[in-house]
C-alpha cells in the first residue's frame, strides 16, 4: 500500500514526508536536531522523558516529537520560547533526582544526560535535590552488570530492550509516583534473577545507571605484576568496532592497530580468539556429523536434533532459564573464549614454558555475558580459572586512552603464535549467521570433498539482519565415509536477539520446525552488536560493522576453518582428533537448568 504524503512546516520551512512519520523524523530530514532520551531506534516509542517536546501551532499542549505523527498543514516549532523553557525544566527535573557525580561515573563523557546538561548549561541547580540515599547503593552482585538506581532517569529503554529485543524481562517498572523505579523481580540482586547478562540494556541506557562491571584495574594490576605472564585474546567482533571509541570512522577495521595497542599496553602474549573460533568449527562440525549419524544410521532416539550452537553465553543462560528441557540440543562445545582459556593454560603454557599458575588470561570481548561465563564453575578445566578477566571493547578503548596511546597513528602489527592464526571463517563469527556460514564451509567440504556451492564461498542466504533466517543445502555425491548423508537436505536456521531465539525455540519445541542445525546469538546482529560494544548502537551502526566483518573475511587468503595451520598443528601435537579425549576434557561441557524467575 503506498503511503500518502503529508506537507507541513517546521520552523517555517516546508517539508513533505510520508504519513505516519513522526515530527522527530521529519525534523531530521530538515537537519533540525531535537534532543531525545527515551527514544531509541531499536525500540518501541515510549514518549515518557519529554525532552523532545516541540510546539505545534494551535495545540493546547506541547507535543512529544518522537511520539507524534505529522499531519497535513501542521506548523511545528522546535525552538520556541515555550519549548526552551519546558525542555530546560525537564532536564533540570531529571538532574534533581539524579546523583550527578559525573567525575566518578563510568559514563562520564559518554552520557546522553550529561550532554544535555552541558548543552543547556544547567549549573545553578534550581530545584531541590531528591536523590534518596538508598538509591545510591549500587547493585554489583552480577559479574557482568552494575545497576545504579541513583543514575536512572526512568526512560525505560532498558525495560523495553529486555522485553522487546530479548524476551527476558529481567527488568521492569515497578511502583508508581515518587517510588517508581526500574526493578528486578521482587527487587532481587541482578545475579539472582533471569538476567542473561547480555548487556543489551547497557548499550541502550542513556546514563550510567546500567554499566558493565569493570575489571580494568585488575588487569592493570596483572600487567604491572612482573611475576605474571599476561595473555590477551581478542574476539572477532572487537576489531570492527573498537575504532568507534577511539575517534575512527564507523566500520573501520583496526585489527593490526589493536594488536600494536595491546603490546603497548603491556600484554605479554597477544593472541586471537579467532584461533579457537576455527577450532570450534572443527569440534562443533564433527559433533553435528556425529549426531546426524546417530540419528540417521543408528536410529538413536536419545540424540537431540536440531543441534544449537553454544558460543553465546547470554544465549546459554537464556536456554538454561527458559527452555531447559531443550538443553540436550545444545552443542557441548564451549565458547571460543573458554576453549581459548583452557588451551592457554595447558597447550600454550607447555609450549611456551610458562607455569600456568603464573599465567593470567584476559579476554577482550564485545560481550558482557562473557564476564559471567568466565566465572562459571564449568570453566576451570585447565586446573585453574581458564579465563581470569573479561574486558569489553569499551574497556579496552579506555585502557588504550589511559595508556596515552594515539591509536590512529599506530602501525599495524600481527598476532603472536601459536594461538594467533585464524581464517576468514573465524572472523565472521562476529556477525549473525557467521558461525553457520563457517560451519557449512567446513562441513560441506568434509562430507563432499568440494567447496560449498556458493560464489566465492559467500553463503548469502545466512547473512543479513532479518531476525530469523533459514537455509537449506543439499548433500550430493558425498564421500564414502558419509554415505548416510547422500541426498540429505541439511536444514538450518539462524536467530539473533533472544526474542527471535524464542520464536525458533517455540517452533522446535512444538514440532513446527525441523532443522538440523540452529545458530543462536543473544545479541541483535550477533557479537558485532554485543552488549560490550561501543555505544551507541543502531541498525545502521550494526550494518556497517557487519560490512567490515565480511570485507575482512573476503580479504583473507584462508577462509575455511579447517585450513587454519595452527589448528591443524594443535590437532597433530596436542588434541589428536576432534571430539577426542583431550577435547572432551578441555573444550566441551554441559549445562544445567535454572529457575524460570
Amino acid at each position, binding site marked *: 500500500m503506498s503511503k500518502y504524503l503529508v506537507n507541513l512546516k517546521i520552523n517555517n520551512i516546508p517539508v513533505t514526508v510520508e504519513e505516519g512519520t513522526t515530527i522527530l523524523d521529519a525534523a531530521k530530514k530538515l537537519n533540525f536536531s531535537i534532543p531525545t532520551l527515551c527514544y531509541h531506534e531499536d525500540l518501541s516509542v515510549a*514518549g515518557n522523558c*519529554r525532552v523532545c517536546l516541540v510546539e505545534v501551532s494551535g495545540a493546547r*499542549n506541547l507535543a512529544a516529537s518522537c511520539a507524534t505523527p505529522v499531519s497535513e498543514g501542521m506548523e511545528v516549532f522546535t525552538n520556541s520560547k515555550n519549548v526552551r*523553557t519546558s525542555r530546560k*525544566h*525537564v532536564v533540570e*527535573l531529571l538532574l*534533581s533526582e539524579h546523583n550527578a557525580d559525573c567525575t566518578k561515573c563510568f559514563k562520564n563523557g559518554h552520557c546522553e544526560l550529561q550532554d544535555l546538561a552541558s548543552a543547556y548549561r544547567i549549573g545553578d541547580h534550581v530545584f531541590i535535590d531528591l536523590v534518596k540515599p538508598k538509591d545510591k547503593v549500587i547493585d554489583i552482585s552480577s559479574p557482568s552488570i552494575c545497576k545504579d538506581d541513583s543514575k536512572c532517569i*526512568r526512560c525505560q529503554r532498558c525495560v523495553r530492550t529486555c522485553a522487546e529485543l530479548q524476551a527476558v524481562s529481567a527488568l521492569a517498572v515497578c511502583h508508581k*509516583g515518587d517510588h517508581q523505579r526500574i526493578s528486578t523481580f521482587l527487587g532481587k540482586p541482578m545475579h539472582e534473577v533471569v538476567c542473561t547478562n547480555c548487556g543489551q540494556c547497557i548499550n541502550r541506557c542513556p546514563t550510567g545507571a546500567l554499566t558493565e562491571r569493570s575489571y580494568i584495574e585488575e588487569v592493570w594490576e596483572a600487567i604491572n605484576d612482573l611475576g605474571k605472564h599476561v595473555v590477551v585474546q581478542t574476539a572477532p567482533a572487537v576489531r570492527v568496532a573498537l575504532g568507534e571509541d577511539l575517534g575512527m570512522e564507523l566500520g573501520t577495521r583496526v585489527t593490526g592497530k589493536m594488536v600494536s595497542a595491546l603490546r603497548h599496553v603491556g600484554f605479554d602474549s597477544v593472541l586471537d580468539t579467532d584461533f579457537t573460533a576455527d577450532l570450534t568449527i572443527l569440534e562443533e562440525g564433527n559433533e553435528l556429523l556425529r549426531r546426524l549419524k546417530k540419528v540417521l544410521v543408528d536410529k538413536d532416539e536419545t540424540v537431540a536434533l536440531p543441534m544449537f550452537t553454544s558460543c553465546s553465553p547470554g544465549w546459554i543462560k537464556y536456554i538454561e532459564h527458559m527452555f531447559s528441557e531443550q538443553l540436550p540440543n545444545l552443542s557441548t562445545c564451549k565458547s571460543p573464549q573458554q576453549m581459548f582459556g583452557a588451551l592457554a593454560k595447558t597447550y600454550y603454557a607447555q609450549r611456551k614454558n610458562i607455569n600456568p599458575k603464573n599465567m593470567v588470561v584476559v579476554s577482550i570481548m564485545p560481550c558482557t555475558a562473557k564476564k559471567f561465563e568466565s566465572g562459571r564453575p564449568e570453566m576451570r578445566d585447565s586446573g585453574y580459572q581458564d579465563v581470569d578477566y573479561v574486558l569489553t571493547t569499551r574497556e579496552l578503548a579506555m585502557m588504550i586512552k589511559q595508556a596515552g596511546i594515539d591509536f590512529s597513528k599506530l602501525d599495524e602489527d600481527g598476532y603472536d603464535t601459536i594461538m594467533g592464526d585464524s581464517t576468514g571463517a573465524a572472523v565472521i563469527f562476529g556477525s549473525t549467521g557467521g558461525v553457520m556460514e563457517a560451519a557449512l564451509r567446513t562441513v560441506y567440504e568434509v562430507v563432499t570433498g568440494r567447496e560449498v556451492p556458493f560464489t566465492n564461498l559467500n553463503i548469502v542466504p545466512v547473512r543479513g539482519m532479518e531476525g530469523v533466517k533459514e537455509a537449506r543445502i543439499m548433500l550430493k555425491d558425498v564421500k564414502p565415509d558419509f554415505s548416510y548423508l547422500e541426498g540429505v537436505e541439511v536444514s538450518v536456521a539462524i536467530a539473533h536477539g533472544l526474542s527471535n531465539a524464542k520464536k525458533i525455540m517455540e517452533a522446535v519445541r512444538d514440532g513446527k520446525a525441523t532443522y538440523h542445525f540452529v545458530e543462536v546469538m543473544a545479541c541483535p546482529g550477533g557479537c558485532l552488536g554485543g552488549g560490550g560494544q561501543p555505544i551507541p548502537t543502531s541498525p545502521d551502526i550494526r550494518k556497517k560493522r557487519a560490512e567490515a566483518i565480511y570485507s575482512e573475511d573476503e580479504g583473507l587468503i584462508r577462509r575455511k576453518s579447517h585450513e587454519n595451520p595452527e589448528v591443524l598443528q594443535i590437532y597433530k601435537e596436542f588434541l589428536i582428533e576432534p571430539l577426542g579425549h583431550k577435547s572432551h576434557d578441555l573444550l566441551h561441557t554441559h549445562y544445567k537448568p535454572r529457575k524460570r524467575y
Partner: protein
Amino acid sequence: METNVLKKVDIIFDITDCDYLKILDRCMSKTQDEVILDIIDSGLKGRGGAGFPTGLKWKFTKNEDSDVKYVICNADEGEPGTFKDREILDRVPEKVFTGMAICGYAIGAKEGYIYLRGEYNFLKKNLQAKIDLFNKQTIEKNFDFTIFLRSGSGAYICGEESALFESMEGFRGEPRNKPPYPTIAGYNWKPTVINNVETLVYVSMICNLGPDKFKELGTKDSRGSKVFSVSGDTPNAGIYEIELGMPLEQFVDAFGDGDTKAVQVGGASGHCVPRKNFNDTIIGFEGIPTGGSMMIFNSSRSMYNVLHDYLEFFTEESCGQCTPCRVGCQQLLKGIEAVKKGDRKPSYLEELKKLALTMKSAAKCGLGQSVANPFNSIIDNFREEIIY
C-alpha cells in the same frame, strides 16, 4: 454570560417512567446515525471531567472501519471528593447498562465493559447479578451486546482512559501516547468509546425523553444537569443533581456553612475558587468544568494543608513514567515545604508556578497536566497562607 439560578433536579435517580427495555426498543427502531444525531443534538458533554462532546466521540468511533469495537464504562471514580458514580451504580445500574447498550448499537460494538474502582468491590456481587439479568434480556431481544464487569486495582491513574485500557489488557496502568485516540485505537487497540458512568445515564435519558427535554436544562455550552458530590465544611454533604450554569455564589449559599472561604471545584485536579470570585464563577463548561466534586473549605482550614494534601496525592498517584509529572509533583511538594520552613525564599513560589505551567503543557497525560490547576489557583489566592 448566560447564568441560571440554582435548581435541584431529579433525573439521574428518578425511576418513574423508565422501562429500559422499552428505551432500547425505541433506540433500535432508529438508525445508528439517528441515535448519534440525537446525542449530538442534545449537547451532552462527558461527565468524567474532560467534557468532550459525547455524540462526536460516538460518531468518530462509528466511522472507524473495524469488526471489533468496544464500549467502556469508566467507573474508576478515583478523583478525591467524588462519590457519585458509586451511588449511581448502586441505585440505578440498569440506566448505565442501557446507556452502554445504546452506545453499542450506535457504534456497532458487541461488547461492553464496566471498569469498576477496586475499592467498590462491595458493589460487585449485586452489580454482576443485575448485569447477568440484563445480558439475558438483550439476548432474548436478539440484540447482540454483552456487558462484562472488570475490577480495577486501586490506582488513580487507571481512571485515565488509555491507562485504563492498559490495565484491562493486563499491563501496568501507564497512559499511552495520543494520538491515536480511543475512538481509533482503544481497548485492545480497537475503536472504543469510553464514557463516564453518569454520561451513560444521561444517554439513556436522552433516548427516553428526546434531546429537547435534555436541552431544556443548562446553558448553551453546558446542557443538562449534573450530579455533584458535595463535601468538606458543609452541613449538607452528599450527592445532588443540579442544573448546569449556576454561579458558584448560589451553590455556596445553598451548601456552605456561612463561613466558606474557598471551594475546590472538580476535585484535587480542579481549580480552587476563593470567596471573592464566587459570584463570577459559573459551574459549567464555559466557566469551571468539573467531574462533579465540590469541596467546601471554611475559614478554619489552612490552604497550605489543603494544597499539601493534594500534592502528596499527586506525588503518590502519578504513574511515574514522565519526567514533568513524576519529578515535578515532588518538586512542588518539597518546594512549598521549603518555603514554609524558610529554607527557600517566598519568591521560589514563582519558580514553582512556572514549573507547574511546564507540567501543564509538557506532561504526557491529564494527571500531570492538571496539577497546575490547584497549585496555581491556591498559590495565587492564598499566597500568605503558604508562606507564613
